[in-house]
């Protein structure tokens, strides 16, 4: 069972709908016990980092997420859910989950911010996550901030929006994607499907 973490930000239903379409059993929950029992976790999220972290803490989910990741539970962070994996976000100057080393920065070089629309990902790393997903595939992005990992080894895909940024990170069982795979047509669904497949092999 995949658990989609409910922390009061963003469109959880769209992730749930996507998993339903893939015929994968999933559940939306904010209960730490349910998270602990899950085979894998998805942290979605649209909105501000400060609010996101505040909600995670209030629900006692921040510690559970870190513990479960440390135990090796497959984890996917989407958009804000990816950013929260890092140490600190410039957005509201907040401390995040610190699962990955690095910070979250604001775009500076483009006139139109947030970036809204379909952009390409140069896929850097060959893992099973990218099976049948072509290099330079387009995914749907909505973001004003991006992740700047300290450890370049975790960067699995990059995208350019005025500056080149990490649009996919992957380390052990943890994956973060800056775009919305659940809204990215067949390429996004393929990626989700690969995450689900990988996750079920681990558990």
């Amino acid at each position, binding site marked *: 069972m995949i658990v989609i973490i409910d922390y009061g930000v963003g469109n959880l*239903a769209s992730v749930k*709908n996507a998993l339903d379409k893939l015929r994968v059993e999933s559940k939306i929950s904010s209960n730490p016990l349910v998270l602990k029992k899950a085979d894998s976790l998805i942290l979605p999220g649209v909105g501000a980092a400060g609010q996101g972290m505040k909600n995670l803490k209030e629900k006692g989910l921040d510690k559970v997420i870190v513990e479960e990741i440390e135990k090796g539970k497959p984890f996917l962070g989407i958009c804000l859910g990816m950013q929260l994996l890092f140490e600190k976000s410039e957005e509201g100057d907040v401390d995040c989950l610190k699962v990955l080393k690095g910070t979250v920065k604001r775009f500076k070089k483009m006139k*139109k911010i947030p970036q809204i629309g379909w952009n390409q990902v140069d896929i850097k790393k060959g893992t099973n996550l990218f099976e049948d997903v072509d290099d330079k595939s387009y995914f749907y992005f909505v973001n004003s901030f991006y992740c700047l990992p300290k450890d370049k080894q975790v960067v699995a895909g990059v995208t350019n929006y005025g500056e080149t940024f990490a649009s996919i990170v992957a380390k052990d069982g943890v994956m973060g994607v800056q775009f919305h795979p659940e*809204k990215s047509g*067949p390429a996004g669904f393929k990626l989700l499907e690969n995450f689900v497949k990988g996750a079920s092999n681990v558990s």
Partner: protein
Amino acid sequence: MLAKRIVPCLDMTQGKVVKGIQFVNFRDAGDPVKLAKKYSDEGADELVFLDITATVENRDILLDVVRRTAEVVTIPFSVGGGIRTVEDMRMILRAGADKVSVNTGAFKNPKLISDCAKEFGSQCVVLSLDARKVEPNRWNVFINGGRTDTGVSAIDWAKKAVKLGAGEILLTSIDTDGTKQGFNVELTKKVSEAVSVPVIASGGAGKLDDFVEIFKKGKADAALAASLFHFGELTIKQLKDYLRNRNIPIRSWYEEYKY
């Protein structure tokens, strides 16, 4: 680089897709959920739903269409028509829409934009702006389905709405809408240059080169069309192939995968 978006629009009334010419004369164009799924599968980059006769009684029908659409499409979509309150917006987002467009309600109460942006984020709030030329080099905002001239300049309203928190502008030229004589390049360029958010050009698409023009000269980030697609005059694939061959960045997708 960001791809230019191709956006089919589904104008609806009582749960059915319709399309008018210059905002009147509607003919039936079919079931919205089926059409939405078809466009999503064919490579559309986003969908726009506009409930053109939004009433309280029809709200449940609209929400049902939104819910069923969210279950079948794999791309983002916005929903608009009769949005007056933060609660209206919440209902539509909860039903599964990614964005909500506001028009007359926001013009009469600009705070609606800032309230919604604060509550859901700017990326959810699309300003739908209907403009008509009133004198050379001057376009006014028209509200109430394009019937009422507000006397306010379209460019001024666009700028103000962005300042309040609108994350995108859906710009419809009433002058060109339904004419199939091409988008309003002049107006779109002006608005696009005046604001720091993406502009979706709407109204007047009739042939392939109209899209080239609106992207290259009109500086649009996305282009919307309805009847061209609904009545099968043009497929999304034909359009995208054409644009790609003219060096416009267009999303490629995987036609062989079906979700």
